[in-house]
């Protein structure tokens, strides 16, 4: 059975609603991307330099990292040579195969949680304006609706209004916020928060941090200190360090993933603002080069618009056109 068919079946078994959120969120991405590939293949009959160049552009247009694209194209070239493919149309299955390979990988989309009865600590890091605080608010809502007790730590003591922003989220979802005054040492806030979490025996502690650019070494050291303080107070923690990435971000996301990873031991990604026209293709590059899985995706402004990432659905949504086409062709061949 072809990979696509398997994929389709496994998706069919999933709740329609969730798939729809994904599909809607990625509708623009999908049409633009797939149409372009198809158009290219029908327009250019021959596989020549210009064909590769245009294919490159399509992939790069989705913010799939330049390195990753170059690697993919090189692999395609090799494959074309090996299989002696001359017509562009014959290339399509090879291409689909390669594309899906890029997005596949081990699925650790589930958040790592502490055993029942213990505190799970999740630390959020990222550059300015990616949506850390909003993501925390949404995630608090999610845990809360699962019946878990949640505590939030206002670790962004730098940006004006950041503590208040988290407090508003706290009121909305009915979760307490541990805070100090603006300008306080964020590591001290984390210390307080961990102590409070222990005392109150909560299930989940969500830690906000101030946005920082990854090339500011003093701020990155501060983050490292936060990480160490949490680790010291709760040896197993933080259970997850999630790097929040804005889907509109380009190549710089790689640098973010790398440097935040070094200083705060990032375990996964949250991809936000995927409801825009941006493709978030950079996560493909990040997965490829740094092996960091996407765990959550933000698909809108509402409280419930945070979803667990499902790579199969992501692939499906990205390459829906290619997939349905292949499965349409499949049945007659099977008969």
């Amino acid at each position: 059975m072809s990979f696509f068919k398997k994929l389709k079946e496994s998706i069919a078994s999933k709740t329609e609603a969730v798939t729809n959120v994904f599909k809607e969120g990625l509708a623009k991405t999908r049409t633009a991307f797939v149409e372009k590939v198809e158009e290219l293949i029908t327009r250019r009959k021959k596989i020549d330099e210009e064909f590769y160049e245009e294919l490159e552009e399509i992939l790069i247009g989705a913010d799939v990292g330049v390195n990753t694209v170059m690697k993919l194209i090189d692999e395609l070239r090799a494959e074309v040579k090996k299989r002696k493919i001359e017509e562009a149309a014959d290339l399509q299955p090879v291409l689909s195969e390669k594309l899906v390979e890029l997005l596949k990988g081990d699925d650790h989309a589930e958040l790592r949680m502490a055993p029942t009865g213990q505190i799970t600590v999740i630390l959020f890091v990222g550059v300015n304006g990616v949506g850390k605080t909003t993501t925390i608010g949404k995630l608090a809502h999610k845990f809360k609706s699962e019946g878990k007790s949640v505590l939030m730590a206002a670790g962004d003591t730098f940006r004006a209004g950041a503590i208040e922003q988290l407090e508003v989220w706290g009121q909305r979802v009915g979760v307490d916020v541990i805070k100090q005054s603006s300008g306080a040492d964020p590591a001290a806030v984390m210390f307080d928060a961990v102590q409070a979490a222990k005392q109150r025996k909560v299930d989940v502690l969500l830690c906000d941090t101030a946005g920082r650019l990854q090339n500011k070494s003093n701020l990155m050291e501060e983050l490292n200190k936060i990480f160490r303080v949490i680790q010291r107070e709760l040896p197993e923690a933080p259970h997850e360090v999630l790097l929040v990435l804005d889907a509109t971000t380009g190549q710089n996301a790689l640098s973010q993933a790398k440097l935040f990873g070094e200083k705060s031991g990032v375990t996964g990604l949250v991809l936000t603002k995927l409801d825009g026209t941006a493709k978030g293709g950079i996560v493909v590059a990040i997965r490829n080069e740094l092996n960091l899985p996407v765990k959550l995706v933000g698909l809108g402004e509402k409280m419930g618009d945070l979803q667990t990432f499902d790579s199969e659905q992501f692939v499906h949504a990205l390459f829906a056109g290619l997939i349905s086409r292949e499965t349409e062709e499949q049945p007659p061949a099977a008969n």
Partner: protein
Amino acid sequence: MAAFESLSNRLQNVFSKLKGKGKVSEADVNDAMREVRLALLEADVNFKVVKDFIAKVKEKAIGLDVSKSFTPGMVIIDIVNKELTELMGGTQAKLAKANKPPTVIMMVGLQGAGKTTTSGKLAKLLQKGNHKPLLVACDIYRPAAIKQLQVLGEQIGAPVFSLGDKTSPVEIAKAGLQHAKDNGNDYIIFDTAGRLHIDEELMDELKRIHEHVKPDEVLLVVDAMTGQDAVNVAQSFHDQLELSGVVLTKLDGDTRGGAALSVKAVTGRPIKFAAMGEKIDSLEPFHPERMASRILGMGDMLSLIEKAQAGIDADKAAEMERKMRTAEFTFDDFLDQMEQVRKLGPLDQIMDMLPGMNKMKGGMKDLKVDEKQIGRIEAIVRSMTKEEKQKPELLNHSRRKRVAAGSGTTIVEVNRLIKQFDDMRRMMKQFSSMMGPKGPKGGKKGLKGMLGRKMKFPF
């Protein structure tokens, strides 16, 4: 991570094959253009923009007699750089001014681009020019956005107009405009909520605000790290609101900022400001030529030079230069100089502006600029007697031991500093001789060589 190879290196690779050939063929130019293309794509310039751009540059490159130059790579870079600069606006654009105050400025953009922070920074910039800006909080959606603007306003002492988050932004805008007129504010800045360019409802709200306040400036705030999607965002905002300019934020990061080029290309509107840091006064006029070399991965020497000019006392610098030339440079001057360098800003920021430095910093751990280390060096120098500072030769072993004890350091550290100081004196002598009649060109090269060789900054 994609190790960004700077364009100059790449082009050198292309042209090194040509050495001794004498002529550069069209095929060679094509090879070079491929490298330029990759450099631009890696910098997040939109691929369509890149395509047009390459076509233009190629035309010029083929027309030119590249072969006559010893370094064809440089000629190509020069063409690319010039074209890029021109494409990004040529010269800097100024903020519009209404004939009859107040001048109305509207800030728009996606979520998290930095509209609120930029509004505060812009108000600060206007205050510096003796204006009286009023900030109006029209973001009623994001929790605590109003509070954020109020805190910023308080920091800089600018009034903030708000009607809370229960009134519609259109009403707030109207009332805000009246408030500015009544209170004699000559500039009014509307901070609007972040929104997706495809969100019809919210875009419509912006249009209505636009109708009522009739802005002189509609500034699109764009995150410099934005990828390929920058064109869609800019196009959409421009179609619906007719932008007058762009503000590029988070440029203090390590992004190459190709979005700048994309946005300029699709809207045709100038990039008016660049936000360069966390501090409230870190909004600067945008310099296309610097952005061009940044996109190409060639550092930001010009900004550094300008910063140095602003931060360093000209008389002192001239005196210092004389001293360096004549090798009169003493530990006293050294302290002075350190003070001056510190005025330029955090050292890593300075480092980032030097070409190739970003890469070096990643590769070399010991280059971590440690502000504490500088404090230690200061302590060592301050523990010397007046005479010793003037005549470092005096520092024999027992004196060094005393200095170490006095500064709370070890003799090893003292020795190292003195050694480095000597090296530095020697290097500066070289450097200043290069700066002489040959002009700044030799000087820059000298500086690069100096930094490149071993990076023996004493700190």
